[in-house]
């Protein structure tokens, strides 16, 4: 199935979790310094391993960047 990660389509196995997806992208376990929104809603870090993705889910993976 396909999900949209930071605006780009990505193929993932059905039932993939947020934690699994982040690991697949190469984020270190626990994802220090990052936050995840699934279809606009915050996914707390504690729920990353129990939140399963559906086809066409929209994920934002966010971290610190320079800003005023």
């Amino acid at each position, binding site marked *: 199935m396909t999900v949209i990660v*930071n*605006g780009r389509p990505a193929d993932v196995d059905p039932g993939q979790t947020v934690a699994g997806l982040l690991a697949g*992208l*190469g*984020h*270190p376990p626990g994802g220090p*310094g*990052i*936050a*995840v*929104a699934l279809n*606009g*809603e*915050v996914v*707390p*870090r504690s729920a990353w391993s129990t939140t399963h993705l559906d086809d066409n889910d929209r994920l*934002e*993976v*966010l*971290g*610190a*960047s*320079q*800003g*005023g």
Partner: protein
Amino acid sequence: MDDPLVIAGQGFTSRLVMGTGGAASLEALEQALVASGTEMTTVALRRTSPGARGSILDVLRRVGCRLLPNTAGCFTARDAVRTAKLAREAFDTDWIKLEVIGDDRTLLPDAVELRDAAETLVDVGFTVLAYTNDDPVLARHLAELGCAAVMPLGSPIGSGMGITNPYNLRIILEQATVPVILDAGVGTASDAAVAMELGCDGVLLASAVTRAQEPALMAEAMRKAVEAGRLAHRAGRIPRRLYAEASTPTEGVPDLTDRPAEGTRDPEGQPRQPDETVGRAG
């Protein structure tokens, strides 16, 4: 720390809050942050990729700054609240620089959305430092609904025009019940000094340093300006007046007229010689 800035019970020795936007490189940013002496620094939340080399978080850790995430780029209360919650997840802090912008061209705060977002975030336990217009009434509302600091603009973000309405700022300061931090518009060191002289509790700036030709040098100038302005404020300036007021005493000024005074001649009508009355020196 004999004159700390205290926000929500947290003390800061430095009254200069630095933004990190606009720096040419992380190295230049780090040098500027160190030179500024800042203890709190804003960061934005943006899409990230795991492969990125070097992180702003590493820089801030090395410099030892407290992280102040912002909601830059949000146009609605809904987006600002979501961004604040994401920032809390990412950075483990409930402090947020709340920024809700009305349009791209002026980047001026949207008062209605800002107020709504501030209320929601305070209700769910955030420590809100609200970037606001230089509007005394809005600033009062933000403080009353529980913001930890109000941060009026001097002029639009990145404009470098300094404080365009010092009178509004004075009213905001006069009625302040929480720290007031001038945020946005500072162009050079004198702007920061003026803000502090007016009585601001701190200054937040980014572009003035990060886009200066020598960012670290300007950061040092800002540190000194904020310190000088604060000292001047505490010292209490003299009132402005239209005409001069001599600082040298007017008593004891010698009479250097080059002729004798009237009515001081001796009985023979001869002018009195100076050495008859005064004697020669020596």
